[in-house]
């Protein structure tokens, strides 16, 4: 179905609703990463202490990041495969941001894992945080596009 100025794609209402649910779950994971990252930043490193890769809070943080990557990647593929270019491009941007953010995070850990560990550690942490937030915003815009497509199909009474 084609509507001028709108991206409905070929996925159908059920598929879009499923994708939207995945997008919402992705946001819950983003929230978990934000809170765990904030916890690590404030209560574990506290500006001076270091953190190792095996720290439980760091493991939770990394598992969350992996889930974020997986969910965002699925949404991106849905966008590419079912003709939703903007969903695909926003998600692609989010996936790229998450990849570079992960590299930043690993750099942070590998070079000391504390704010007093040196310039490279700080750069890693800074890149990680900044690109995580960019990924969150890009995923949000992809979610809005999926939600708009769902609403349009519902409003026009079409299921495919």
């Amino acid at each position, binding site marked *: 179905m084609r509507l001028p100025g709108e991206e409905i794609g070929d996925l159908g209402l059920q598929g879009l609703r499923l994708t939207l649910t995945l997008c919402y779950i992705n946001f819950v994971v983003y*929230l978990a990463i*934000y*809170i765990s990252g*904030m*916890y690590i*930043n*404030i*209560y574990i490193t*506290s*500006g001076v202490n270091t953190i190792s890769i095996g720290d439980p809070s760091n493991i939770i943080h990394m598992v969350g990041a992996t889930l974020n990557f997986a969910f965002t990647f699925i949404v991106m593929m849905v966008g590419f495969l079912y003709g939703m270019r903007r969903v695909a491009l926003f998600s692609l941007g989010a996936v790229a941001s998450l990849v570079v953010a992960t590299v930043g995070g690993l750099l942070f850990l590998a070079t000391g894992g504390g*704010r007093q560990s040196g310039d490279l550690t*700080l750069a890693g*942490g*800074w890149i990680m*945080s*900044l690109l995580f*937030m*960019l990924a969150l*915003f890009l995923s*949000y815009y992809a979610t*809005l596009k999926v*939600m*708009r497509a769902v*609403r*349009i199909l519902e*409003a*026009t009474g079409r299921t495919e």
Partner: protein
Amino acid sequence: MEQGVDESERLSKTLHRIFLFLYLQFAFYWATIAAGMLVNYYYAVPADLQSDFASIFLQFFAAPSLFAHVAFAVLSTGMSIPAIILARRVRLSQVVYLHAGAITARMVGFVCGPLFMYFSTSAVADPYAANISTFVMASVFLTAVILTFMSRIFIVREDVRIKYVVGAHPMTGVR
């Protein structure tokens, strides 16, 4: 019929103005985070900082990253005001409440930020309270982001309603 179409166009234009302010708001949110990260990793509260309001307030002008962080936080919060005004015009009460909630959350953040500095001064030196202040500041920032994100859901819903329900059937459109 003509009047219904005019009304739809007017509503649609107002909604798109709200979208513009929300784009700006998200850009400022991101800039706040970027500057906040610079503050987080590169700024340290000076050892000789006095624990009074004037000294703490002047710290906002002491480091460019700190100044940028606060300025972008104020700007992103400020974008909720035109969003509220425009949302009132199109009677989107959910958007008004969500942005009012976001402003309130940010106000708490504006108190907790200086409190972090206060508890970090050598005269007070209470790291536990300083940590709590930072945690609350970051949490209310996230709350504000979530609330403004949610407001966009209602705006998109209304935009679709105007285009595909009211626009298609001007006399029978329902929310």
